[in-house]
């Protein structure tokens, strides 16, 4: 390529050191693609002036309203001409990853070949919402780039006030803590919202995330409007051989300090092996001929700690499913919100179970679409209207698992109390 490189003394400093360097990668692309030469020029300018120079705009593919992040340079000379013309348009295609972010090298190579033809050759695996980000394409090439990626079986993700791209953990494909089929659930739910992903028309963004157990490797509770976090209802399962293996390697001090004492609800007790016994709600495992653990599962909150420490020796139960939480988000506008429980447990074992989850998700997104203010996340809506109004709106029953504590102030009108008790009792007797 005859386009000469701009001097990049500051970026050059990021080529040394042991961690892989994106600058070295960009320079290699610059040898073949003038767009990246100018991208480096603009980026070096940012490093020098400590200012950003991209502005948004409107670019999309035929039939879709979202999924492309348009970027036009604002770095222009006195005549309004771009200082780095080959990177004056540098849009991103957000593309939804397969669940668990598994790939064959065959498909990765095809995606690379395509992006080299139409775009800059720079791809991020992955963005913070989970998208594969194909970074750097001119407006005129966006459609052709998308068409090829689309023909390879991939589709655009969300942007703007839309249902967004989702992520699920490695889950059942390689993790013993998996409590539901994360990949299938992720795909089933998200593919039920494609219209809301491709044609943004919600009050603001809406994110789903799927974690297979309460370790929540996808950070669903803090980062998604609707979090699906795996859990189980029955007793923790045990495997004596693996528990003994842990004890043989670690001894009594570690067992006490790292396992028994770190149980947040004191559900685990160290007992003499000779006296230890399992019960209807008690898991028991001998760790040696002398010592055993007893876990009162009614007191266990499924935090995962002891299972993480004695992996395999202790394991999630067999009656698995998920807890659903709603309303997680970061600061803007009212401050950080965690997702909070709206369904303590639901089975996710069958297609029918997953359809129930889709149905719940639809009710929640519909409620969001109709009731949220512009630029308000569902967590903020709930903060504004109260959880009870939200639950009534999406037809969910209240449950004491939804609160950390009951109310601590008397500022509530309770003249409907007797009717409410009667309604609950009637419902109970109907269920019995």
């Amino acid at each position, binding site marked *: 390529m005859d386009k000469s490189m701009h001097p990049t003394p500051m970026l050059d400093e990021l080529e040394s050191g042991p961690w892989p360097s994106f600058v070295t990668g*960009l320079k290699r*692309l610059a040898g073949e693609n003038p767009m990246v030469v100018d991208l480096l020029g603009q980026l070096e300018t940012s490093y020098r002036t400590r200012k950003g120079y991209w502005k948004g705009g409107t670019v999309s593919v035929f039939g879709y309203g979202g999924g492309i992040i348009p970027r036009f340079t604002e770095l222009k000379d006195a005549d309004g001409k771009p200082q780095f013309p080959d990177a004056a348009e540098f849009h991103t295609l957000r593309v939804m990853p397969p669940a668990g972010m598994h790939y064959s*090298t065959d498909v*990765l190579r095809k995606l690379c070949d395509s992006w080299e033809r139409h775009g800059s*050759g720079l791809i991020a*695996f992955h963005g913070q919402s989970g998208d594969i980000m194909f970074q750097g394409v001119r407006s005129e090439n966006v459609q052709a780039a998308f068409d090829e990626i689309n023909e390879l079986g991939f589709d655009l993700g969300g942007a703007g006030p839309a249902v967004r791209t989702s992520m699920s953990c490695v889950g059942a494909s390689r993790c*013993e803590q998996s409590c539901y089929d994360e990949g299938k659930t992720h795909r089933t739910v998200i*593919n039920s919202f494609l219209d809301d992903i491709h044609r943004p028309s919600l009050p603001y963004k809406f994110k789903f995330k799927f974690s297979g157990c309460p370790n929540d490797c996808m950070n669903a509770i803090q980062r998604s409007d609707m979090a699906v976090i795996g859990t189980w209802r029955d007793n923790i399962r045990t495997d004596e051989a693996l528990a003994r293996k842990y004890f043989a390697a670690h001894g009594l001090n570690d067992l006490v300090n790292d396992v028994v004492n770190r149980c947040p609800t004191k559900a685990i007790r160290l007992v003499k092996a000779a006296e230890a016994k399992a019960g209807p709600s008690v898991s028991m495992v001998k760790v040696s001929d002398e010592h055993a653990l007893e876990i009162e599962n009614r007191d266990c909150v499924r935090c995962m700690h002891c299972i993480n420490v004695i992996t395999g*020796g202790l394991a999630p139960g067999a009656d698995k499913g998920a807890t659903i939480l709603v309303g997680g988000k970061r600061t803007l506008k009212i401050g950080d919100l965690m997702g909070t429980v709206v369904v303590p447990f639901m089975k996710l074992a069958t297609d029918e179970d997953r359809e129930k989850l889709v149905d719940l998700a639809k009710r929640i997104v519909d409620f969001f679409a109709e009731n949220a203010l512009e630029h308000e996340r569902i967590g903020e809506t709930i903060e504004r209207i109260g959880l009870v109004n939200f639950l009534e709106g999406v037809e969910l029953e209240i449950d004491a698992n939804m609160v950390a504590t009951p109310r601590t102030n008397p500022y509530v009108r309770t003249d409907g109390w007797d009717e409410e008790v009667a309604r609950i009792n009637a419902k109970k007797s109907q269920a019995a």
Partner: protein
Amino acid sequence: MATATATPRRAIESGVPDNTPFLHPVLKRNYGNWKYHDRPRPGVLHHVSHSGEEVWSVRAGTQRQMDVHTIRTLCDIADRFAEGHVRFTIRSNIEFMVGEESKVAPLIEALTKAGFPVGGTGNSVSMIAHTQGWLHCDIPGTDASGAVKALMDELYHEFIREDMPNRVHLSTSCCEINCGGQADIAIIIQHTKPPKINHDLVANVCERPAVVARCPVAAIRPALVNGKPSLEVDEKKCICCGACYPPCPPMQINDPDNSKFAIWVGGKNSNARGKPTFMKMVASGIPNNPPRWPEVSEIVKKILYTYKEDARPWERLSDWVDRIGWPRFFERTGLPFTKYLIDDWRGSRASLNASAHIRF
């Protein structure tokens, strides 16, 4: 423009692709049937299925923003050792699965030789979750990939070892929206001055009522400036959050000198032990100093190594501070506890010490 065709191609709205064709054969055969795992060495996970089958996953760090040549190098390695399958973690690490233990060492050698650090498992400092920054964002106060590269160079040895009390997750964010997310230690731009408004542009560029509504403290109001409809900011009320800047670019919040970094600690999304926690601001006023941001690295390392030295096994950073208390956190790290760290936002009284619990 390219020659316009009469009917553009209609998208196949296929959504999330089926991952089944992409799964490594051992994973496919043992889907949902895994029994336990251990870690034979940093960077390697060894999973055992109820069927008795085993798989070794070798994890390596990447630069996340990858050129196609880097991706092809990774594909070449996967074709040689891992039957042509890979996966990525949420922190942009790549994983190669192999069904035979004998392939692990040569795979690690190939990755190391190609410049990819093997690690990021267990009690390591994993790759930093990060954002786009100057490379691609329209509202960045700083860069992301560069700051991450600089810090990971410094923390390289903590990535390839598992020497921490528990896992350590880091994130960086180039504005207060914090796309990098919650982390044990997070590095986030903190603006310190109200937006500078270009009144000539506001009327044409910004939907003024939407901008007014966006402000968390109602500091923005419509105004006529030099005869033009614009917006003004009550600078006494303004908390410099930058929320007005994305919907109204003429309200420039980024400031090369006055946009600083803040450091936050103790975010944890896992339910293990205590409930999930949000991170807390513990330092601010740190200069935005490319290309290597040394002042940021210094504070992050001070916090990290104080935690490493002082925390007990399995304590995440938040668990450690729960035990030692905030006064000792500031004492041990040498960070000043200033009035700006006492929360005064809504619900802030819940963050005050409503007890006589004092550690001496």
